[in-house]
C-alpha cells in the first residue's frame, strides 16, 4: 500500500486539538489535509490519552486514508525517576491486540497518577507539585509484548534529552536500558527537526545525532514532525495554547515553541527536512532513503483496521449473568415484559391489555431482529437498582414511547393512551444504538453511580467524559492572558462576551448596540484589535475534559480493551471518549441524569412524612386534579418544573391548560423549533376557536385532533407519512428526519405523491399536506419527550398546590429552577408561608418545614446559607441541637470567630438573649470582645476559647458595651451580608416610598390593568432571558421583582434595546417605563420602552427634594419677609413630583 516515492509521507506523531492546550487542529481537518497532500496514512497521538482517537479514525475513513493511533506518554523507571515523554503506537492487523494494549497503557499512565506513586515520582523528579500521568517502563514493556506496540524515543524522551545536552554517552546508555527493558522490536528512535536556529531545540544538530545513535545501535529511526497544527497559519493558535498551558503571557514564557514549523508538512517538505538532517551529519549514502523507508514501514505496521482492530460499530452488552439472566435473554425479556403488562394494564380493562400485548409483540420483533434484548434487560436492571435504593426515577426521551420500557418499569409514562410511538425510539431503519435517559434525584446521583459500578463490576462500567470547548468568555480570557492584558480589563470585556459566538466577535462588535463602547475601544487599540482575532481563533477548540453530567457506559468485560479511562473528579473511572464516540465504538451509554426537581420533590415528600407521618406516592397522584390545573392556569408557576420561565408563564397564560395532554403540548411548543416555525400562535388560534381546526382530510383527523390541526409532534409527522404512503412507522421516521435536509425533499415528495395518489388522496389534499410537511422541516418535538417532561411538571404543580410549604422547602434546599432563592422566598411570602430566620436551635442542614402556633406552616432557613461557615461547623451545629446556653453552644460547636460573629449578627444566636433583638448588639459586642488562644479541635479546625457565660447587662444601660456593627443596619441588610438572602423583609421594601412617589405600579397589581396602559415598573432584576424568536431578532425578557408579588416580566424589543444600550443587561436595580401587554386571559407582561438605574433615580429624587426644601425654606423666609413688609402672599410650589422626576430623567437620558 505504498505510493510513489515523494508523494507520500506518513506522519506518526501528531497531536490533535483534543490534546488540550497543546494541539490546535481538529482531527477532521488533519485527516482531510493529509489526504489532500497525498498521504495514505495518518496517526494521531494525543498527549496523555486517546482523546481524539475515535474522531480521527472516523475522519480517516471519510478521507479515505489509513488511521494510526497512539499516545504521547510520560514514562518512569522502577525508582519513579522520569524517563521523559515517548510516543506509544498501536500495531494494526493484530485483531485488536495493539489497540487494546494502547488503551491499557493510557489507563495505566493515569492510574499510576494518584496517591503515593505520584508523590514518589514527583519527588524523584524534583518537583514539589504532583506530576501528571505517567506509565512505568515495566508496565509499558508488558503491554508491548506479543508485538502489540512500538515505542518512539524522540527528542522529549530521556534519550533525546541526553542528546540535547550533547551527552552522547548518556544517550547511548539510556537507549541500552530501553532496549533491555522492552521487547526486541518495540523500540524505534524518532527524528524530529523543526529547522530551528542552531543551538536551540528543534535544530538539525540534535536530529542528526539522534540518527547517528540509531545507526550505531542498529535500530530503525523514523522521521516525524511532532505535529501540533495542520497549517503554518495555526502556529499562532499554538502560541496561545502554550500561554494557556503555562498560565503566562506570551512575552513571559521561557520556552515558547522554537518556531512555527510543527505543522502537518506535505511529503516534499518532509523529504527536504530529511535531506538537511542527513546532510548535517556523517551518515552513509543510504541514510536518507533508509530513514524514509523505515518511517513508511512503521506506518504500515501501525495502520489500524477500524473494524478488525478497533471494533468500530460493534455493540457489546454486559454478559447475561451480570444482568441476572441465566437462560436466553430474549425469553427472559418476554417473560418480564408480559408480567409487567399484566400488572400495569389489568386495571384499564381487557382491551387495554390486549392492545398492550399486541404492541409488545410488535416491539419485540424489532428487539429480536436487532439483537438488543440484553440492552433492555440491562437498562431495566439499572432502573431496578435505583428504585431499590428508594430513589425517584423517571425515564425521558424517545424511549418513553415504548410499551416494553413501560412494562419493564424503566419508564413511568403509559405510551399507548398518550399517543407515543415505538418507532420514534427504535426501528430496523434506525442505524444508531437505542438511547434511554433516566432522570433521578440529583442529590443521589453519585450514590447511584457507585452502586452501578458495584453491581456490574468496574471492568464493565465507566463514566463518560465530555469535551468542554472554548466559548466566548474563556476564549477572551485566555487570549487576554496571552497578550498580557490586565485582569481588570479582560474581566470587563469577558462580562460582555455572551449571547454570541466568539468566532463572530468582530461582527457582534459591529451589530450589537450594547457593545458599542467596546467597539470604539477596539478601533482605537492595536492590542484590543489583536485580542478580537485571537479570541475568535480559540473559539470552539477543546479546552478540557470532565465527567459528563449523566453518561454511564455499560459493557462487557472487554470494556477496558476498547476505551482508555482516567479518574474523574468523583474518583470513579471515566472514559476518555465522549458522547460522539459512543455510537461508533459500540459503547452502550445510559444517561442517568440528576434532576434537581426530583430531589426537590423527594424532599417535599419527606418533609410531609416527617411532620404528618403520611406518605405521598407522587406516581399515584391522579393526573386530573382541578386545583392543580387552576394554579397552572393562574400563571403562578414559579418553581414548577419546565413552566416557570417568563416565556413559559406567558404561554401557559395563553394556552390555559385543562388536562394532562395540554401540558405535553405546552412543553413541546416552547422549543426553538416550534417557536421558529410559529407553531404556538397557530395552535393557540385553533385552540381558542379563532380559526377552525383544519384537518385537510378526514383520514388525518385522528392524527391531528389532539393539537387542533396543527402539526407539532414528530409522532404526528410519522403517522401522516404512514397514512399517506403506507410506508410503516419506522420508514416514516427516516422520512421525518430527512425533512430537515433540503436536498432530500424532492425524492421524498416524489415518493409521497405517487403512493398517496394510489392510496386514494386527491392531488389537492396531497399539495396541502406536502406544504405542511415540507414546512415542518426538522422542527417540532418528540411527543415522548414532552410527555416525559409533563409528568414532573404536573407533579410539582400538584405539590405546590397542596403542600406549598414542603414544596418550597424542597425548592430552597435543592434549587432546581432558574430563579434565585430570594425570589422563591418572595413567592413563599405571597403564598402565606413565612420563611423563618436562621436559628442555631432549629435550623438544619436543609430547609425544614415547621408547624407554627397559628396552625400554619413556615420554612426554616438552612444552615448552609451562612456565608463563610464550614461544613464541619454546620454539621456540629446540626448534631448538637438544641443548646442550653451560649456556653453550651460554644463548647459543643466550637465555631470559628468569623462564623460565631456572623451567627450573632444575623440573629441566629438570639435564642441566648431571649429573642430580644434590641440586645443583639450586646451579644455581638460580647463575642467580639472575647479574647482567647486559638485551639485545635476535632477535624483540625481552629476555634477560639471564649469566656462564658454572657454577662448580664442589666440596669445601667450606660455602662453596657455595644457593637457599632449593627448600628443603622436593618435585619435585611444583615441577612444580605451574611446569608446573601433576605428572609425578614424584601430588599425592595426600602424603595417603596420612592415607588409611591414616582407612581410605580406594583407587580401584584399589574394583572388588573388593561392592555396598552402606560406604566412605570421598578425592582431588582431576577432573570434575563433571550428566548428563540421567530424572525431572528433578539428579544430580551427581564424579570423584575419589587417585593409585592410574582415577578413582572418586561420585554425589550429591538428598538428599545437600541435606546437602552448595554443597560438592558447590566443594570440590576431598575426603573422601567413601558406598556402593558395582555397575554391570554390571565397573563400580562410589559413592553419596555426605557429603563433607568434605580439608584440614579433615587439620588436624583433626593437631590430634587433637597433643592425643593431649600427653595421652600428660601420662599418661606422671603414670604415672611415680604409679609412683614408688604403683606404679600408667596407663591406655593406644587407640581406632580413623579412627572417632574421623570421629566428630569428624560432630559438626562436624551442628553
Amino acid at each position, binding site marked *: 500500500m505504498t505510493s510513489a516515492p515523494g508523494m507520500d509521507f506518513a506522519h506518526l506523531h501528531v497531536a490533535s486539538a483534543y490534546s488540550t492546550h497543546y494541539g490546535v487542529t481538529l482531527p477532521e481537518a488533519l485527516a482531510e489535509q493529509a489526504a489532500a497532500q497525498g498521504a495514505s496514512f495518518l496517526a494521531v497521538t494525543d498527549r496523555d490519552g486517546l482523546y481524539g482517537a475515535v474522531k480521527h479514525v472516523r475522519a480517516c475513513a471519510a478521507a479515505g486514508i489509513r488511521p494510526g493511533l497512539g499516545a504521547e506518554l510520560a514514562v518512569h523507571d522502577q525508582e519513579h525517576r522520569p524517563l521523559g515523554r515517548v510516543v506509544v503506537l498501536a500495531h494494526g492487523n493484530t485483531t485488536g491486540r495493539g489497540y487494546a494494549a494502547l488503551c491499557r497503557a493510557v489507563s495505566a499512565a493515569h492510574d499510576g497518577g494518584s496517591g503515593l506513586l505520584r508523590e514518589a515520582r514527583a519527588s524523584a523528579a524534583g518537583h514539589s507539585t504532583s506530576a501528571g500521568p505517567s506509565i512505568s517502563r515495566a508496565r509499558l514493556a508488558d503491554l508491548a509484548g506479543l508485538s502489540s506496540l512500538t515505542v518512539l524515543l524522540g527528542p522529549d524522551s530521556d534519550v533525546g534529552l541526553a542528546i540535547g545536552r550533547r551527552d*552522547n554517552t548518556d544517550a547511548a546508555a539510556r537507549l541500552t536500558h530501553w532496549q533491555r527493558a522492552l521487547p526486541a522490536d518495540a523500540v524505534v528512535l524518532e527524528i524530529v527537526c*523543526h*529547522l*530551528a*536556529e*542552531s*543551538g536551540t531545540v528543534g*535544530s*538539525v*544538530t540534535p536530529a*542528526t*545525532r539522534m540518527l*547517528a*545513535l540509531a545507526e*550505531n545501535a542498529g535500530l530503525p529511526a523514523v522521521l516525524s514532525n511532532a505535529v501540533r497544527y495542520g497549517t*503554518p*497559519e495555526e*502556529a*499562532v493558535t499554538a*502560541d496561545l495554547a502554550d500561554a494557556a498551558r503555562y498560565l503566562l503571557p*506570551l*512575552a513571559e514564557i521561557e520556552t*515558547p*515553541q*522554537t*518556531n*512555527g*514549523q510543527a505543522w502537518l508538512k506535505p511529503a*516534499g*517538505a518532509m*523529504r*527536504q527536512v530529511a*535531506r*538537511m538532517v542527513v*546532510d*548535517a*551529519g*556523517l551518515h552513509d549514502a543510504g541514510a536518507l532513503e533508509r530513514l524514509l523507508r523505515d518511517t513508511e514501514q512503521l506506518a504500515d505496521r501501525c495502520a489500524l483496521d477500524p473494524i478488525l482492530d478497533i471494533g468500530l460499530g460493534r455493540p457489546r452488552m454486559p454478559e447475561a449473568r451480570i444482568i441476572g439472566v441465566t437462560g436466553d435473554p430474549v425469553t427472559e425479556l418476554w417473560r418480564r415484559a408480559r408480567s409487567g403488562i399484566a400488572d400495569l394494564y389489568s386495571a384499564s380493562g381487557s382491551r387495554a391489555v390486549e392492545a398492550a400485548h399486541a404492541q409488545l409483540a410488535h416491539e419485540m420483533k424489532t428487539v429480536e431482529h436487532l439483537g438488543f434484548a440484553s440492552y433492555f434487560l440491562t437498562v431495566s436492571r439499572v432502573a431496578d437498582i435505583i428504585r431499590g435504593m428508594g430513589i425517584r426515577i423517571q425515564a425521558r426521551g424517545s424511549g418513553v414511547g415504548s410499551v416494553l420500557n413501560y412494562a419493564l418499569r424503566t419508564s413511568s409514562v403509559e405510551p399507548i393512551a398518550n399517543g407515543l410511538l415505538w418507532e420514534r425510539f427504535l426501528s430496523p431503519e434506525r442505524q444508531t444504538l437505542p438511547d434511554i435517559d433516566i432522570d433521578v434525584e440529583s442529590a443521589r446521583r453519585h450514590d447511584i453511580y457507585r452502586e452501578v459500578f458495584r453491581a456490574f463490576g468496574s471492568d464493565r462500567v465507566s463514566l463518560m467524559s465530555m469535551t468542554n470547548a472554548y466559548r466566548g468568555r474563556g476564549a477572551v480570557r485566555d487570549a487576554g492572558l*496571552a*497578550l498580557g492584558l490586565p485582569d481588570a480589563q479582560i474581566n470587563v470585556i469577558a462580562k460582555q462576551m455572551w449571547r454570541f459566538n466568539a468566532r463572530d466577535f468582530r461582527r457582534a462588535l459591529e451589530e450589537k448596540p450594547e457593545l458599542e463602547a467596546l467597539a470604539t475601544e477596539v478601533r482605537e487599540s*492595536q492590542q484590543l*484589535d*489583536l485580542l478580537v*482575532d*485571537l479570541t475568535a*481563533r480559540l473559539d470552539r477548540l477543546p479546552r478540557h475534559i470532565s465527567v459528563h453530567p449523566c453518561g454511564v457506559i455499560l459493557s462487557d468485560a472487554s470494556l477496558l480493551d476498547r476505551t482508555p479511562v482516567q479518574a474523574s473528579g468523583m474518583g470513579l473511572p471515566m472514559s476518555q471518549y465522549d458522547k460522539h464516540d459512543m455510537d461508533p465504538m459500540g459503547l452502550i451509554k445510559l444517561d442517568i441524569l440528576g434532576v434537581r426537581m426530583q430531589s426537590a420533590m423527594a424532599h417535599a415528600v419527606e418533609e410531609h412524612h416527617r411532620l404528618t407521618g403520611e406518605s405521598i406516592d407522587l406516581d399515584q397522584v391522579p393526573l386530573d386534579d382541578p386545583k392543580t390545573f387552576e394554579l397552572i392556569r393562574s400563571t403562578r408557576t414559579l418553581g414548577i418544573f419546565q413552566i416557570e420561565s417568563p416565556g413559559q408563564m406567558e404561554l401557559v397564560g395563553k394556552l390555559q391548560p385543562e388536562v394532562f395532554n395540554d401540558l405535553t403540548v405546552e412543553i413541546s411548543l416552547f422549543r426553538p423549533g416550534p417557536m421558529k416555525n410559529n407553531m404556538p400562535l397557530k395552535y393557540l388560534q385553533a385552540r381558542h376557536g379563532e380559526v377552525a381546526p383544519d384537518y385537510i382530510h378526514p383520514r388525518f383527523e385522528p392524527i391531528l385532533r389532539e393539537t387542533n390541526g396543527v402539526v407539532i409532534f414528530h409522532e404526528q409527522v410519522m403517522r401522516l407519512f404512514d397514512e399517506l404512503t403506507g410506508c410503516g412507522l419506522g420508514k416514516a421516521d427516516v422520512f421525518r428526519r430527512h425533512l430537515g435536509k433540503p436536498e432530500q425533499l424532492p425524492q421524498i415528495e416524489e415518493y409521497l405523491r405517487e403512493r398517496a395518489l394510489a392510496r386514494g388522496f386527491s392531488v389537492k389534499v396531497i399539495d396541502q399536506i406536502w406544504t405542511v410537511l415540507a414546512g415542518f422541516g426538522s422542527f417540532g418535538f418528540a411527543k415522548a419527550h414532552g410527555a416525559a417532561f409533563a409528568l414532573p411538571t404536573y407533579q410539582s404543580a400538584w405539590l405546590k398546590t397542596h403542600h406549598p410549604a414542603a414544596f418550597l422547602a424542597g425548592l430552597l434546599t435543592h434549587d432546581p429552577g432558574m430563579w434565585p432563592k430570594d425570589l422563591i422566598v418572595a413567592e413563599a411570602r405571597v403564598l402565606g408561608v413565612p420563611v423563618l430566620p436562621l436559628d442555631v436551635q432549629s435550623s438544619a442542614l436543609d430547609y425544614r418545614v415547621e408547624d407554627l402556633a397559628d396552625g400554619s406552616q413556615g420554612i426554616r432557613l438552612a444552615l448552609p446559607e451562612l456565608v463563610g461557615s464550614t461544613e464541619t461547623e454546620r454539621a456540629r451545629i446540626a448534631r448538637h441541637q438544641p443548646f442550653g446556653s451560649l456556653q453550651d453552644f460554644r463548647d459543643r460547636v466550637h465555631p470559628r470567630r468569623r462564623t460565631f460573629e456572623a451567627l450573632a449578627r444575623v440573629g441566629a444566636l438570639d435564642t441566648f438573649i431571649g429573642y430580644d433583638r434590641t440586645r443583639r448588639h450586646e451579644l455581638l459586642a460580647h463575642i467580639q470582645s472575647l479574647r482567647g488562644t486559638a485551639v485545635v479541635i476535632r477535624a483540625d479546625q481552629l476555634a477560639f476559647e471564649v469566656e462564658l457565660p454572657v454577662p448580664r447587662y442589666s440596669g445601667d444601660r450606660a455602662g453596657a458595651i455595644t457593637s457599632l456593627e449593627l448600628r443603622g443596619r436593618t435585619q435585611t441588610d444583615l441577612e444580605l451580608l451574611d446569608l446573601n438572602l433576605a428572609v425578614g423583609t424584601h430588599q425592595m421594601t426600602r424603595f417603596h416610598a420612592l415607588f409611591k412617589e414616582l407612581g410605580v405600579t406594583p407587580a401584584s397589581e399589574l394583572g388588573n390593568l388593561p392592555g396598552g396602559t402606560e406604566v412605570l415598573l421598578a425592582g431588582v432584576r431576577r432573570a434575563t432571558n433571550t428566548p428563540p424568536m421567530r424572525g431572528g431578532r433578539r428579544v430580551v425578557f427581564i424579570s423584575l421583582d419589587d417585593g409585592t408579588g410574582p415577578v413582572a416580566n418586561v420585554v425589550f424589543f429591538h428598538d428599545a434595546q437600541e435606546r437602552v444600550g448595554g443597560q438592558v443587561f447590566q443594570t440590576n436595580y431598575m426603573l422601567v417605563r413601558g406598556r402593558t401587554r395582555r397575554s391570554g386571559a390571565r397573563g400580562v407582561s410589559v413592553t419596555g420602552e426605557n429603563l433607568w438605574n434605580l439608584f440614579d433615580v433615587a439620588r436624583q429624587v433626593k437631590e430634587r427634594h433637597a433643592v425643593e426644601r431649600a427653595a421652600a425654606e428660601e420662599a418661606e423666609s422671603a414670604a415672611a419677609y415680604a409679609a412683614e413688609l408688604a403683606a404679600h402672599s408667596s407663591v406655593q410650589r406644587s407640581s406632580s413630583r413623579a412627572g417632574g422626576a421623570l421629566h428630569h430623567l428624560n432630559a438626562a437620558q436624551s442628553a
Partner: protein
Amino acid sequence: MFAARPALLATREPALPHIIDAPVDVELSADGDPRAFIWNRFEHTVIGQPQAVFKRTRWWEDEGTPTRIDTELWRLDASRGGEEQHRYDLRRGADGSWVLALDWG
C-alpha cells in the same frame, strides 16, 4: 562518534558578513531547495545541501494577526561561474519574495 562535519549552521569563526539586503530571483529545484539565484545579473549556483532556518518572532508586539510566527532564512554556499564559493543568507518573505541578506564571504 557522532561528530558532525562543519555544517552550514555550525558556528564558525566570525568573519564579518557584508550586509547586502537586495531583492533577488531564486530558482528552486524540484525538491523545493534553492538551486540558484540571480544577483547583479549574474547567476549564482548553489553548491551542496542548503539549510533552512526558521526563526520565531514576537508577533504579539506587532500590529495585526500574523499568518506566520517565524521568518524563513536559507544559508547556502554558492558560486558565480567558476569563482570561489561564498556563503550567503537568503531570506524568503511571507509573500514568497526573496532577499539576499548577507554575504559571509
